[in-house]
């Protein structure tokens, strides 16, 4: 089915970049973080976009011109895949497969998914922890050296889960970064934390103060995307991330 998903390149794509993913999920952490990266990083521009009949018949208009809801932004060392709409639960596999195959063809050195992990009573937390899961022992070791806590046991549901598993199978270095966040409400604070985690792993550093200052405005603006994302999360049984797995050795 991944043949039904095309990535159309608009610019020359750098080889050997770090590929990041910011897709709608819990707290919209990945999308908010990706959007902040695009506004803060220098020389980053749209380099490719996704064309697929598996997606709903939808375009996003910016300044009167049509854009695919799933686009890839890039500069000389980053490729950032971001979606401006909730991805239907039943097409996540082919969408992720196509993006991973494309990234592999561009010889990306690492894939990192920016996301969140829901926590009850989130509003009572003063500090948000960032956890990580990785595709290999070497990557886990690197995360531990950077003092990022490993998500040892549990379930992971959504695009980041597919990415991690696929990359582990292919032997491609990959990490999923997860900041504690609200399940169903946009969480710019969590996005700021995940970006701090990204900085310590890759050196891709951006100032997150604007993200925190404009937090309430972002939450107001992100309501509709969150509403659609809630529905897709419910279809993919996202709350299973709260479950305790039965360990089979």
């Amino acid at each position: 089915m991944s043949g039904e998903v095309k990535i159309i390149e608009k610019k020359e794509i750098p080889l050997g970049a770090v590929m990041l993913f910011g897709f709608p999920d819990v707290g919209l952490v990945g999308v908010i973080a990706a959007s902040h990266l695009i506004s803060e990083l220098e020389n980053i521009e749209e380099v490719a976009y996704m064309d697929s009949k598996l997606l709903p018949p939808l375009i996003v208009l910016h300044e009167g011109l049509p854009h695919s809801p799933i686009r890839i932004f890039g500069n000389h060392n980053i490729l950032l895949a971001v979606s401006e709409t909730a991805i239907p639960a039943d097409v996540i596999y082919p969408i992720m497969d196509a993006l991973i195959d494309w990234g592999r063809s561009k010889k990306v050195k690492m894939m990192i998914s920016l996301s969140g992990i829901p926590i009850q009573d989130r509003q009572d937390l003063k500090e948000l922890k960032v956890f990580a899961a990785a595709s290999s022992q070497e990557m886990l070791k690197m995360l531990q050296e950077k003092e990022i806590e490993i998500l040892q046991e549990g379930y992971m549901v959504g695009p980041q889960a597919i990415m991690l598993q696929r990359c582990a199978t292919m032997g491609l270095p990959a990490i999923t970064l997860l900041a504690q966040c609200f399940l169903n409400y946009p969480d710019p604070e969590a996005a700021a934390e995940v970006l701090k985690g990204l900085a310590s792993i890759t050196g891709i550093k951006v100032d997150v103060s604007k993200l925190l200052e404009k937090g309430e405005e972002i939450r107001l603006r992100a309501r509709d995307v969150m509403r659609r994302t809630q529905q897709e999360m419910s279809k993919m049984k996202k709350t299973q991330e709260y479950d305790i797995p039965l360990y089979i050795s």
Partner: protein
Amino acid sequence: MATKRKRSFFDIIDEYFENLEEWAEELGERLLERPSWNQKTCTIEPLRDIMVTPTEVIVTVDLPYTEESTIKVKPLDKNTIEITAKLKRKIRFDDFGITHYKGEFQTFHCNTRIPVSVEMDKMEVRFKKGILEVRLPRKHGYPIPIE
């Protein structure tokens, strides 16, 4: 002559629950397929969530950009609450770059149905980090003695 197998009681129950699930999914999707704002009443609908525990119902509502002093939580009947809150300033469509709709909004408004019986008069409300939390103790029947 082919004989039609009589449906068992369990088949009927299974079918009932399947229909109920389909209906709930359809209703959820239909509820979503409308704007989250109302130009006539100048209100926007907040994101909200309901959690039912054995002892209470917890309703949370995302109310960013609001003044705490303007938040009102009002029981409408024995299982519905109305929530309103004023935004810190009027929000217009063009604040979000949208020019093909006109209108401005200054209030969050929603009515939330509580799915189980609760004691409305024992409602507890708190507001933290832009999240309103309404706690309603569940009504309980009488204990059945274990012999």
